[in-house]
């Protein structure tokens, strides 16, 4: 196998899994919003903000690819390919699971707001707890890219 194939598998995991995580997360928020709108249709702004929160993981995955794209050359070394694969694995899986979990926190918050509890601020704070790890994985990807030889 050529090193670049290995690297691209990592990139695929990175964009794919992180994107799936966000897709799951935002749909959970969206579903909960539609239910909550039935009870309380005045807080749509709050629902939308909370539903959008898990959207970032997918962007991190995409930007991870963007950072690494300059190193994806035909003659790349195995060391570079392994670094890219590792970064992809980390960002992909963390993005997937943190996106889904963050979506669950947001969905519960939306349901609670719909039932008349004033928990928008609390949900915002709690919902970014799981996202931190996706941010850390993204920062790690960035730092990995910084160590790669051009």
């Amino acid at each position, binding site marked *: 196998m050529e090193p670049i194939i290995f690297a691209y598998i990592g990139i695929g995991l990175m964009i794919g899994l992180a994107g799936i995580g966000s897709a799951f997360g935002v749909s959970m928020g969206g579903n909960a919003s539609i239910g909550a709108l039935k009870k309380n249709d005045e807080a749509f702004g709050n629902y939308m903000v909370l539903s959008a929160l898990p959207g970032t993981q997918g962007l991190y995955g995409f*930007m991870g690819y963007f950072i690494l794209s300059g190193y994806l050359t035909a003659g790349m070394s195995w060391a570079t390919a392994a670094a890219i694969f590792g970064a992809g694995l980390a960002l992909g899986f963390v993005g997937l699971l943190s996106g889904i979990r963050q979506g669950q926190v947001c969905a519960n918050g939306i349901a609670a707001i719909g039932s008349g509890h004033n928990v928008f601020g609390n949900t915002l*704070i709690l919902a970014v707890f799981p996202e931190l790890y996706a941010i850390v994985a993204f920062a790690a990807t960035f730092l990995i890219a910084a160590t790669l030889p051009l």
Partner: protein
Amino acid sequence: MHKFSFLVFHRDYPEFLEKVREIGVVHLIEKQEDVPDQVRDKYDLIKQVQWVVKQLAKRDAGETTPGEPITDGKTAFEDVRAYYNNLDEKFQQLTLLQKEISQVRPWGDFSKEVIRKLAGENLHVKFFTVAASRFQESWYEEYPIEEIGRHAGQVYFVLIQQGEEEPGIDAEEMRPPERPLSELLHYRKKLEEDLDEINSELDKYVLNALDAIKVYGYRLKEEVDYTNALANTDKQADEKVMLMEGYVPGEKNERLIAYLEKNNILYITQKAEEKDKPPILLKNKKFAEKFEMLGDLYSLPKYNELDLTPFFAPFYMLFFGFCLGDAGYGILMGIAALLLKKKVRKELKQIMGLVFYLGVSTFFFGVISGVFFGIPLFDTGLPVYKDLAARFEQQDTDINMLLFYLSLILGGIQIIFGLFLKAINETKQFGWKHAVGTIGWILLITGSIALYGISRLTGVPFADLNPAFYALLAVSGLMILFLNNLNRNIMINFGLGLWNTYNMATGILGDLLSYIRLFALGISSAILGFVFNSLAVSMSGSIPVVSILVMTIILVIGHGINLFMSGLGAFVHPMRLTFVEFYKNAGFSGGGKQYNPFKKIT
């Protein structure tokens, strides 16, 4: 906050309450535990009034001619509510009718009378439907049928059956329609006219009665407040003397005291005590005031506790700028806030002020990190950035690495600042003897940093400074482990000190690393902007006018998405840093309730 207790003769009490309400500074202490049914009903009514007001306010009255203004809010409210109930009912009827019409439509018009007469002659009209593909022309010869129509791939036909014997045709028999189409259509027209009529009536109320209904709602609220005030009054001496208690902020009591003195009303005033849980009124000046709404999202401070708003405000502003970090977006936010500030309602002015500050900070960090609408300024060869880029290269680093360290340094500063506030807070609430442990931690952390700094700056190896370091360890260790609360037994102090040390050791590192998000979010917003710029350039093609058009569309949509997503992140993540990392290290406990005086609304 001062606690006031008023003793008033029962006959003067209504007048007294009226006056207190007019002055509007007393936050009444609640004594009753259950809400009486009467009050609950009023609350329900208030909710209904608010609903009606909201519905009316949403309507676009258009070209309705305004009639005489209605001043009786109560009647107007009841009328409007009745209209809305009617509207609801009619609307439901219309929905059911639509459904029926769509079922009957393929059968068209028929006369029920004729069908009934035929039945009298032992001729039964049966209604059938079958998929057009399964309908056989030969049926015309085999059965007495007549096609009525074709609709959505189905053939609708009737069969005249003589006697009771089933015809055995291979099609689905339908229930005969209740009413012919023309009757339904007529009924629908009438319903639609009714709806139009109700709507135009409601439109009139928007113009004539909205204000009166609003005032009616405020009145109801005042009545409830008044009933509550009465319920919170203690009746003493055979109900001859009324005792009412409440809190008044120190700087707002002048008018109240003047009134009390002038009318010889007996009152006692004393400084509020923390154990009574007095209400909280924050006193922040111009800049910090705008950040109060963020603090409210978490919790108000306890009474006597330091309000952290002015202390987190500058950090929050910096952190927001760090996370969004684009000079172009900063300028946009600043301009938008300034323009909108003049146009928006009073309540939103504060938010616009906040957005302006955040925009300034975003611009500032955009300049530092060299990002302008996603364009990396360090790569552009602009005068200052070119020199800086060259200097970074010499030292084998780049702006991103520096931002990485900057995020940690800012985090460290905020954490240490939080510890300082904790020491001040403990001193303020319980006296300095409670703050020794925290001061020990500050000493240990700042001392270690100072020693490390000295060793780096002077070139003295850190090992040579060991004696100073050990002395620092000994002093701060003593304070942390044994003297953390001078009012307690030293052994208890030791146990708690150990527990505290465990928490600090595991917590502070995590807290510090948590600030990396500032760097990562800043990078992510810059890269996303850059991605959209490259997309715009590469996808716009080379057709003269079209390419500019496509490029503009991609840029506007792309930067719009980035501004929203990154702006959301930049709003939320610094908030978490404030409420979790900063509040924890500053020892904030919170849980105060809002100062909400008994006052007139209309």
